[in-house]
C-alpha cells in the first residue's frame, strides 16, 4: 500500500474575478522510501499540491474535492488540531525555498530546534539540546554546539537549508515535502543539499516529494517523476523511462527545451503560454500548444492511463515509444 495516496485532488482559489481552478483532479501516490519528483512550469500547481496535502493553503485557496489518504485517514477532512498534533512535523514535514526566510529571524537555531523536540517528543531541556546537536551533526553542520546559539541571519544559505532540513526531520517524519529546496543556492551548495537529501533518504527510509522546475535536479534525486501541466498530471513514471522516452508531448517539449552542452542552434521552446486557469481550454489543457493535437483533444479530457510499465500518460495522441528503449525492453 502506498504511503500517501492523493486522488482527484481539486483546489481552487476564490478570487473576486471568479474561481481559479489551480488543481483540477491531481492523483498521485508515494511509496514508503520513494522520492517522487513533481515537475512543471511556474503556475502549474506544484506548490499548491504540496500545500493542499499538508493543508497549509492560505486564503483564498481551498481544497474543493478529492482525497489525500495517509494511513487510511483522509487529510482533507481531518480537524486542524489533529493535523497539528499528529501529522505536521511528525508524519509529514516540509522544507522550503529561500531557507533563510524559512527560519525565524529573532529566535536562535537551537531554540527553534529544541522547542519542537520538547513539545513533540516530550524531551526535557537537556535531552532536547543533546538531540538537537545529534540532528545537526547528521546534516553535517560543523561545530553544532556553537551553531545552536546562532541566529538565522548569521548562516549561509546552504547552512540555513541544512538547519531547515534538521528542523523538518527532528520528529522523524515518514514523508518530507521539499518545495524547491535548492532555489536561491549556488550550484555547489545545491549539489551538497541534493547529496544530503539522498543520503538521508537512504539512511532513514523516509519518502520525499520533491517539487521543482529543475529537471536536472529531479534526475539526480528522484525515483519517479510526475509532470504537472495546468493543474493536471500529464505524465508520470520511473525517472529513466520518462526521460528517455517521454510519451506526453508536453514532457517531450519540456525535455527538448533544456539547455544542453554541445547543443547546436537555438533551444527549442514551447509555443504559446501556460493555460489560463480562469478559463481553461476544454478537453486536454495542453492542446492549444500541442504539436499532436487533433479534434478530440479539444473536446475530451484524456484520462491518465497506463502506457508503458509503470508509466501513466494523459494523452490522446502520445509520442511513439523510442526505438532503443523498446529494443532494450
Amino acid at each position: 500500500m502506498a504511503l500517501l495516496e492523493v486522488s482527484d485532488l481539486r483546489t481552487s482559489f476564490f478570487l473576486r474575478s471568479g474561481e481559479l481552478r489551480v488543481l483540477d483532479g491531481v492523483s498521485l501516490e508515494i511509496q514508503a522510501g520513494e522520492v517522487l519528483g513533481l515537475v512543471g512550469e511556474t503556475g502549474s500547481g506544484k506548490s499548491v499540491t504540496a500545500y493542499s496535502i499538508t493543508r497549509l493553503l492560505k486564503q483564498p485557496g481551498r481544497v474543493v474535492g478529492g482525497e489525500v489518504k495517509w494511513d487510511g485517514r483522509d487529510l482533507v477532512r481531518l480537524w486542524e488540531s489533529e493535523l497539528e498534533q499528529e501529522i505536521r512535523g511528525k508524519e509529514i514535514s516540509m522544507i522550503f525555498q529561500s531557507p533563510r526566510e524559512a527560519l525565524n529571524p529573532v529566535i536562535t537555531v537551537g531554540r527553534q530546534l529544541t522547542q519542537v523536540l520538547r513539545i513533540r517528543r516530550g524531551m526535557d531541556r537537556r535531552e532536547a539540546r543533546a538531540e538537537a546537536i545529534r540532528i545537526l551533526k547528521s546534516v553535517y553542520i560543523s561545530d553544532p554546539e556553537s551553531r545552536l546559539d546562532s541566529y538565522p541571519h548569521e548562516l549561509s544559505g546552504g547552512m540555513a537549508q541544512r538547519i531547515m532540513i534538521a528542523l523538518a526531520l527532528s520528529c522523524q517524519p515518514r514523508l518530507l515535502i521539499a518545495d524547491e529546496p535548492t532555489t536561491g543556492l549556488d550550484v555547489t551548495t545545491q549539489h551538497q543539499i541534493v547529496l544530503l537529501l539522498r543520503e538521508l533518504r537512504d539512511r532513514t527510509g523516509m519518502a520525499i516529494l520533491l517539487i521543482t522546475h529543475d529537471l536536472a535536479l529531479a534526475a539526480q534525486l528522484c525515483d519517479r517523476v510526475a509532470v504537472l501541466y495546468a493543474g493536471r498530471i500529464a505524465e508520470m513514471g520511473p525517472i529513466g523511462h520518462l526521460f528517455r522516452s517521454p510519451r506526453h508531448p508536453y514532457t517531450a517539449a519540456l525535455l527538448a527545451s533544456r539547455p544542453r552542452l554541445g547543443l547546436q542552434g537555438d533551444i527549442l521552446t514551447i509555443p504559446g503560454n501556460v493555460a489560463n486557469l480562469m478559463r481553461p481550454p476544454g478537453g486536454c489543457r495542453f492542446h492549444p500548444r500541442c504539436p499532436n493535437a487533433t479534434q478530440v483533444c479539444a473536446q475530451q479530457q484524456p484520462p491518465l492511463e497506463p502506457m508503458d510499465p509503470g508509466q501513466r500518460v494523459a494523452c490522446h495522441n502520445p509520442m511513439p515509444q523510442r526505438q532503443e528503449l523498446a529494443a532494450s525492453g
Partner: protein
Amino acid sequence: MAVEERNLIAPGAGLTAAPPVVGRFSDFVYQLRGNPATFAGLFIVVVIVLSALLGPVLARYDPYAVDLGQSAVGPSLAHPFGTDQYGEDILTRVVVAARLDLFMVLSAVGASMLIGVALGALAGFFGRFFDEGIMRSQDVLQAFPRFVFAMAVAWALGPGIVTVIVATAAINIPGYARLMRSLMLSVKETQFALAAVAVGNSRWRLLWRHLLPNCLTPIIVLSTLQCGFTILEAAGLSFIGLGVRVPQAEWGVMIAMGLQDFLQGHWWIYTFPGLAIAFAVLGFNLLGDGLQDILDPKRRRV
C-alpha cells in the same frame, strides 16, 4: 558510521567556523557610544530610576515635614529648590516624587502594553470578526481626545493613584493594539510562519512563540516613548485635581500647589517639579528614539 565519515567531507565542505561571540551587553555599550543623544536619554532615565529607588534614603529632609516658619522660602543653600507654602523642602519632594510618578507611569504603560498587545495580536492573527470586533472597540476609545478621555475615566473613578494608572493606561491601549495588529498582519504572512507550522508547531505556539517575538522591537520603542507622554498625562491629571491629591509628593500636584502662589512670585514652587517633568519626558523620548536605531538591525552601527 563509515558512511557518515565519508560524506562528512563532501556535503559539509566549505562551512566556516562560528564567528566570535560578541556579548550582548558590550554590543549595547558600543551602539550607545555612537549615539550621544540616546546616551543622554539613558542617563536621565537612570537618574530618575535611581532617585525613585534611593530618593527617600538620600533626601536630607522629610518630604512631609510641615514647617510653617520656613513657608515659601526661595532657593538657598539649605533648600536649593526652596520650600513650598507648608515649608516642605522642594528638592526632597521632587526627588521623592520620582518613585510615585515612575510607579504610576510604569504600571500604566505596562498594563496598556499587555492588554493592547494581546488585543492587537489576536485581531491581526485571527482576522475576520476578531479583527472587526477588537479594532472597532479601539476606534471608540480613540474617538475622544486622549486627555479628555483620561479625564472622563479619572472623574468616574474618583481621585487616587489607581485612578491615574487606569486612566492613563486606558488611553494608551489603542495605540498598542493598532501597532501590534499591523505588525502581526505582515509577520504572519512570512515564510518562517508557514515553515514553523509545517514542521509541527501549533497555531497557538506560532502566535506566541514565533510571531510575537518578531514584533517586540517596535513595541519596546513605543513603550519608551509612551512613558514620556504618560508622565505628562499623569502629572496633568493630578494637576487638575483628578489624580493624586495635595499633600502627596507628586510632580503634577506640586505644580498645582505652586500655581496657588503664582501671583506672589514664588516661582520656585512650580518651576522645579515642572523641570523634573520636562527632563523625564525628554529622557524617555531620547531613549525611545535611540532604541529605535539600536534595535533595528538595519540602522545599527556595525
